[in-house]
């Protein structure tokens, strides 16, 4: 492990001057760019009061943004719970000794990681009703789509987590006479789940953002209500997009901070000791963290 500060010497007088000059040049360039953007938006009338006034009215928040946000959070929470279950089941399935469990589990996980979520949600909404002879609500189309995709990603993360647990643990468990299912339930999954906590929380950010794809089935989440429907009322697409983006950024930053905190906490307790000694599982963990669907 290396913190970035080892990459360069502690700046001496000349380096400090150079860094200061670079900071100023870059800072000025950045400010100039932002100023230009601001001016251009001004010229196009994007700062006009009529576009922003809706956000000072309580109705905008109580009727559009908060109900949308509630749907977004509800879908994300439900999707997360189901994804976790899906992930654990299929991770264990892929590690099964029986090929007729292992192979289908692998196929499911690989398939749903490869299909764009937009296609999945659309199909669940329009296609599945023909199969089950009944309607699928937009909410469930979004949640099931999110579950299949994020569950598959989590399944891979769990699998890596289970495999990262030192073999001595399961050997000891077998030695005291446990069956394979007991070893999984009592020894491996609980430890893997704790080690994977940061990954799980990061995936929640992905899941929360992905609820925005619900627009394709008119699911009334934050983007649909706060940008599409709101701008139908007031004609302020850009203003609405800026406000809604800010809300997403705040919420996701909070979740990311939570992930960082959990990461530090679990590391301090030594749950990820394996990662420090062997380079093996680290890339797999990162891979799971950075699966950036919509």
């Amino acid at each position, binding site marked *: 492990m*290396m*913190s970035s500060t080892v990459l*360069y010497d502690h700046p001496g007088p000349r380096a400090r001057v150079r860094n200061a000059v670079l900071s100023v040049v870059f800072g000025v360039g950045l400010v100039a760019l932002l100023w230009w953007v601001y001016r251009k938006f001004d010229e196009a009338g994007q700062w006009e009061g009529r576009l922003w006034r809706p956000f000072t009215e309580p109705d905008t928040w109580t009727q559009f943004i908060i109900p949308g946000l509630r749907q977004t959070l509800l879908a994300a929470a439900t999707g997360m719970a189901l994804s976790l279950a899906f992930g654990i089941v299929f991770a264990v399935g892929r590690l099964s000794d029986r090929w007729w469990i292992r192979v289908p589990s692998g196929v499911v996980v*690989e398939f749903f990681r490869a299909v764009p979520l937009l296609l999945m949600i659309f199909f669940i909404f329009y296609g599945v009703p023909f199969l089950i002879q009944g309607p699928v609500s937009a909410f469930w189309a979004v949640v099931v789509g999110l579950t299949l995709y994020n569950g598959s990603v989590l399944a891979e993360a769990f699998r890596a987590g289970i495999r990262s647990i030192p073999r001595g643990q399961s050997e000891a468990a077998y030695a005291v006479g446990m069956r394979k299912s007991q070893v999984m339930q009592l020894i491996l999954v609980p430890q893997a789940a704790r080690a994977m906590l940061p990954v799980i929380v990061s995936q929640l950010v992905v899941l929360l953002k992905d609820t925005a794809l619900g627009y394709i089935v008119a699911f009334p989440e934050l983007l649909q209500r706060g940008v599409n429907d709101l701008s139908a009322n007031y004609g302020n697409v850009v203003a609405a997009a800026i406000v809604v983006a800010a809300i997403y950024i705040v919420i996701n930053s909070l979740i990311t901070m939570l992930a960082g905190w959990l990461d530090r906490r679990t590391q301090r307790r030594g749950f990820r000791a394996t990662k420090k000694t062997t380079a093996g599982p680290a890339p797999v963990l990162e891979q799971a963290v950075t699966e950036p669907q919509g």
Partner: protein
Amino acid sequence: MHVFADQTNLDAYVSGFLWILKLTGASAFFALVLGVLLAAFRVSPVPVLRGVGAAWVNIFRNTPLTLIVLFCYFGLFSTLGLSFSDELDLNNYWLGVVGLSVYTAAFVCEAVRSGINTVPAGQAEAARAIGLTFFQTLRIVILPQAGRAVVAPLGSVLIALCKNATIVGTIGLIEASSVMKDLINSNGDAVIPIFLVFAGTFAALLIPTGYFFGWLANRMAVKR
């Protein structure tokens, strides 16, 4: 499969996936360049650069891509007047590439940064000890080793990018997901075969890509 026996539908299917491939190709290139640059920013000695890198990652990684692409159209093109082409499709294509690139670059940046972290500290210390500057250390010692460690995560990012290309449909580019939507609307009796063809094409493109990157990562892994 009568839907795909129709020449117009078949053409739409082909052109839909061609857009996806073109979006993925161009965005992968720009996202990689931009992402590595941002990662260099984030570990650089200049505080302003570090701030820019961190802000970029926090803003774009936490915003839904749909919103970013929408903003490329209404902010960059419509308000700032940034136009790439008089051809409508091409303009939308490049706006989509911008959106996908700035979004994906945030993920590339984080992958490269975590790759840098896998290089033992002693390497950088040794490089500094023989008098290499920050950029020399990064270019000659750190990045080549980090590059090997980030093959697998970058593979995931590329796969996600290809799937994310479907989101450019929101600004009117008729890519694969829009074609599928259109075909389903006009062929309500063949929803399942249509979905299987489109999902199957994505799976056929991306599952082998995933295995390829897994194999490559294994081959390139630095044995320590």
